[in-house]
């Protein structure tokens, strides 16, 4: 399978990223609809006429490895926010649900047949990440707007460079087209290199030297792929390769505590969609959806842990929000790069307060700062890893130097000020997260954060010769402070998707 993000939704591009996968089940429904009329006989089935086709839906199942997983995360969440630590070595992509999802061209070679089914305008509408044999597995549901399986030659030709087909959508410049004999489809009559199609029924190709008849079958040849053509890393694993943490209450991601007995983890990101079929013309491609619209997005999860005490039952009983993190780590990307996380608070002027985690490392990125207007004296409070700066009613007493001094007094962080100015809540309306913290040996990472979940009802029931388990379905709510229901941070050596 090869994928490529499209520049224009539904317009195929040459695929360039090879992805290993386990199975695919994308159905191409060249469907028809029955005409059954009262017409002088008892026959119910008089004629079949062409029906709409698509969206072409199904699943792609693959084990998650850090390099190629980003393409699917980008498709499910939308474009990432990207930070380069060391170009081409340590690149961080942060995915959160966006209002627009990119589309993809996906080539899936037909095993042993030498040609591909090319799906284009592909939406990755749903992803389920779960543990399978200690490996992290992803099942991606796709909805393809269009497909090129094959086309028919519509005008006999034996020379020149113009090939007439009943579908050229999906063909891109550089494709190798195989023209198969309609009477003996195992026989290749011609192998032609395509230019970009000039219209839906004509494509310029390399010189035609064979006699092609109306009805001969054109397919897109599959590229010859070797093992070493795959740019990939090792699959991520759960036991021995990941850690799970829970945090309770508001700002749960600043109150994470590592779990020692979580045996099961699964998360699902599900985008609703609607395919639009419209009367757009009389070509084959006009039977396919004219577009696919996005609807809402929801994130759910499942965790399973040994029941040791009623802690989580109590959370359920009170409908308390709970934050969940699963962090999978892979190979070392870069050594000797320890750095402390920092963040900057703004003032109403040029002054700033720079807050730094005292310990270098990834965990410093969990600190966050909230600035609120108080009614008394300037103070800073640290609860978990949440720093709350409560401003004085006298604006002059919120000078950057004073704010830095109260934050600096907290354990685990230091703060300095630059220039002059007074910190205001208006200048820092959102929770400010520390970022840039790096471990000494930075690894590939896939970190899934669900900041505010609620549990579905569960009961740790008792069975003979069994252990007591909390098996819990969760629904991720949109966290009002973080403005998202889920965040995935992916670190690898890939600069863009």
């Amino acid at each position: 399978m090869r994928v490529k993000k499209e520049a224009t939704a539904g317009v195929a591009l040459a695929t360039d990223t090879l992805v290993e996968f386990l199975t695919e089940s994308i159905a191409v429904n060249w469907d028809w609809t029955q005409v059954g009329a009262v017409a002088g006989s008892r026959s119910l089935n008089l004629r079949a006429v062409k029906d709409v086709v698509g969206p072409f839906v199904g699943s792609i199942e693959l084990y998650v490895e850090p390099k190629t997983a980003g393409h699917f995360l980008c498709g499910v969440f939308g474009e990432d926010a990207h930070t380069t630590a060391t170009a081409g070595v340590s690149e961080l992509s942060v995915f959160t649900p966006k209002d627009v999802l990119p589309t993809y061209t996906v080539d899936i070679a037909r095993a042993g047949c030498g040609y591909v089914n090319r799906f284009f305008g592909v939406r990755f509408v749903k992803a389920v990440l779960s543990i399978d044999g200690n490996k992290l597995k992803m099942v991606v549901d796709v909805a393809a707007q269009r497909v090129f399986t094959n086309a028919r030659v519509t005008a006999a030709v034996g020379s020149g460079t113009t090939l007439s087909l009943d579908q050229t959508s999906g063909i891109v410049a550089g494709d190798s087209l195989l023209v198969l004999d309609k009477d003996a489809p195992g026989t290749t009559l011609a192998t032609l290199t395509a230019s970009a199609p000039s219209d839906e029924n004509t494509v310029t190709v390399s010189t035609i030297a064979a006699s092609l008849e109306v009805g001969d079958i054109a397919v897109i040849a599959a590229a010859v792929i070797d093992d070493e053509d795959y740019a990939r890393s090792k699959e991520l694993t759960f036991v021995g390769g990941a850690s799970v943490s829970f945090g309770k209450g508001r700002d749960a991601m600043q109150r994470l505590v590592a779990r020692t007995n979580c045996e099961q983890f699964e998360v699902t990101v599900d985008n609703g969609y609607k395919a639009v079929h419209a009367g757009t013309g009389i070509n084959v491609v006009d039977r396919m959806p004219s577009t696919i619209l996005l609807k809402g997005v929801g994130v759910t999860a499942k965790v399973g842990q040994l029941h040791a005490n009623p802690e989580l039952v109590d959370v359920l009983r009170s409908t308390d929000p709970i934050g969940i993190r699963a962090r999978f780590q892979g190979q070392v990307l870069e050594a000797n790069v320890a750095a402390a996380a920092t963040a900057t608070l703004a003032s109403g002027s040029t002054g700033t307060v720079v807050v730094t985690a005292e310990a270098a490392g990834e965990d410093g990125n969990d600190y966050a700062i909230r600035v609120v207007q108080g009614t008394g004296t300037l103070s800073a409070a640290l609860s978990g890893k949440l720093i709350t700066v409560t401003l004085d009613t006298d604006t002059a007493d919120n000078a950057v130097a004073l704010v830095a001094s109260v934050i600096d007094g907290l354990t685990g962080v230091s703060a300095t000020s630059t220039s002059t100015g007074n910190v205001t809540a208006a200048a820092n309306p959102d929770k400010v997260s520390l970022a840039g913290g790096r471990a000494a040996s930075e690894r590939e990472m896939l970190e899934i954060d669900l900041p505010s979940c609620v549990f579905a009802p569960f009961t740790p029931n008792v069975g003979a010769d069994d252990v007591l388990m909390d098996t819990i379905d969760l629904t991720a709510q949109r966290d009002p402070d973080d403005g998202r229901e889920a965040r995935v941070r992916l670190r690898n050596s890939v600069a863009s998707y």
Partner: protein
Amino acid sequence: MAQPKTKKTVLPDGTEVVELVKEVAPAPKQGDIK
């Protein structure tokens, strides 16, 4: 510049609070030279 004075307390739930201690200038006495 002198460091601003702060006071640190730890609440029962473990929350650390660092508060700015405001320097209050003494009220002028009668007869002070202004």
